């Protein structure tokens, strides 16, 4: 145990995902060692983010106003919506520069073990959007995990009957890599999910 304020910061930091007690200790002492304005800038950044950032009222991406920058953008294709688990997944899809549609952030994936059922995810909000927005296709980009797959299946079962096109991202080999370097797990899966030429 360290002096009260130091230990308090260590405790707070170690609550963050991916930070163990040792890393928390290292970070805390780093923050103690740097110039005071640098440390306060970190504190202010945390403050500002929590004060100023809200969730987009339409897609639940992070936003600095009522709507996020993507939902405000008039040039985007409103007929396609990419359904993701978390706001940070949007950044990944955006980086491809290949996608010009909108998004919908579910806020997680189905996981009864963690008490997450459909009621805890933003399915009602998605349903409401389908009624008002003229959406024609849902691209499901949930994680390729057991929970992400189950969530994708749920979306297909719930929304396909409404006459929408529902698609799922393909999974398989990394592009541009040698087959030789693909691990057997990925290659095994890619074989099982092979497609006709």
């Amino acid at each position, binding site marked *: 145990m360290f002096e009260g304020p130091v230990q308090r910061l260590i405790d707070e930091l170690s609550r963050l995902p*991916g930070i*163990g*007690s*040792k890393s928390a200790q290292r970070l805390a002492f780093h923050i103690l060692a740097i110039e005071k304005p640098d440390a306060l800038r970190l504190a202010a950044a945390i403050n500002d983010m929590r004060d100023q950032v809200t969730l987009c009222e339409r897609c639940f991406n992070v936003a600095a106003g009522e709507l996020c920058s993507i939902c405000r953008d008039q040039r985007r294709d409103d007929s396609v919506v990419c359904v993701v688990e978390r706001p940070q997944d949007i950044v990944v899809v955006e980086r491809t520069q290949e996608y010009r549609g909108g998004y919908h952030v579910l806020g997680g994936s*189905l*996981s*009864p*073990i963690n*008490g997450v*059922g*459909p009621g805890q995810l933003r399915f009602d909000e998605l349903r409401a959007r389908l009624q008002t927005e003229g959406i024609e296709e849902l691209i499901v980009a949930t994680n390729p995990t*057991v*929970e992400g*797959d*189950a969530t994708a*299946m*749920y979306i297909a*079962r*719930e929304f396909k009957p409404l006459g929408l096109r529902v698609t799922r991202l393909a999974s398989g080999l990394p592009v541009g890599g040698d087959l030789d370097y693909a*691990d*057997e*797990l*990925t*290659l*095994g*899966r890619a074989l099982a999910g092979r497609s006709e030429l």
Partner: protein
Amino acid sequence: MRVDWLSLVDFRSYRALDWRPDPTVNLLIGPNGAGKTNVLESIGYLASLKSFRSASDSDVISRWSGSSVIRAGIGSIDRERLIEIEIPREGGRRTQVDKTKLKRTAELLGVLRVVAFLPEDLDLVKRGPAYRRDLLDDIAVQLWPSAYLDQSEYDRSVRQRNAFLKSGDRDEVTLAVWDSRLAQAGGRVMARRIRVIETLTPLLAESYSVIASEDAQVGITYSASWIEGAVPSVSAGEYADAIARALEARRRVDYERRMTTVGPHRDEPGFSIGERDARTQASQGEQRTLALAMKLAAHQAITQALSETPVLLLDDVFSELDPNRAEALAGALPENTQTLVTSARPEDLPISGKVWSVGEGDVG
């Protein structure tokens, strides 16, 4: 395949071990508690990513330390590879092959292949069905590393579906989603098990007759409550359909019992000798011979599939066998195979090899 060298840091009783086993037969000799099994366990861990002794990874970490490190040089026909794995008490495992970090620890599977024989494996025939399910699944991973993914997805799906049933929620769409996820993964697990059985059956009969020095009709049986009659050899997709139908039919029971009462996780693999069920109608001698033959068959199946011999680990097995059976096993051991044998009583060992003395945190 062979382990050229092994280095352990804070693994069970070893603070720091550097050991270069012989490429042929190694006899690790030392009193009980000296740390012989720990060496075998660490090699088994590299091959299967789990301890063959305990369910929890943190058990392998020395009590004075926050993490264990296993490093090994693995030689195979065409190349040498360096495996490094760190098992921390908190957080995920870190693995490297040839100094390259793996995105997923599971990618390590297949770099080293191992068949392990532990004293409790001798009871393989008469123990509960879970033990024999694990055996088939473990062999599947050694044969086809991607089976590991199927198995962990299946386990996870069963746990998720059970959690849903326990939650008291009665949303039919959500249950249907978990049914279908579970059936998909279950179909793949099932297809692997049946392929393991098909591959091993002829080899099992052969090894059995070598050890027992008599011909007998031995076979591997498999009974699944979700399949009527004999289990057919069909595709993963067809098994998945059958599992899905069974889950739907059992829905009411599952809601009541708040658990998944049907599927590959409840199946019962077994063995037969002639017309007899080996679990209830075979002598203890026959059961032990079957268990030994099954491991040798697994070793042979992997050798045939890869044109390379897996490392064989025999933990204190000979002392559990009567002299005749011990001799027969020694005679049936595969050739050109790196073999690690532990024993507290070297005079009991019917095989010869390089002798190592194990004790006080060292092998020398």
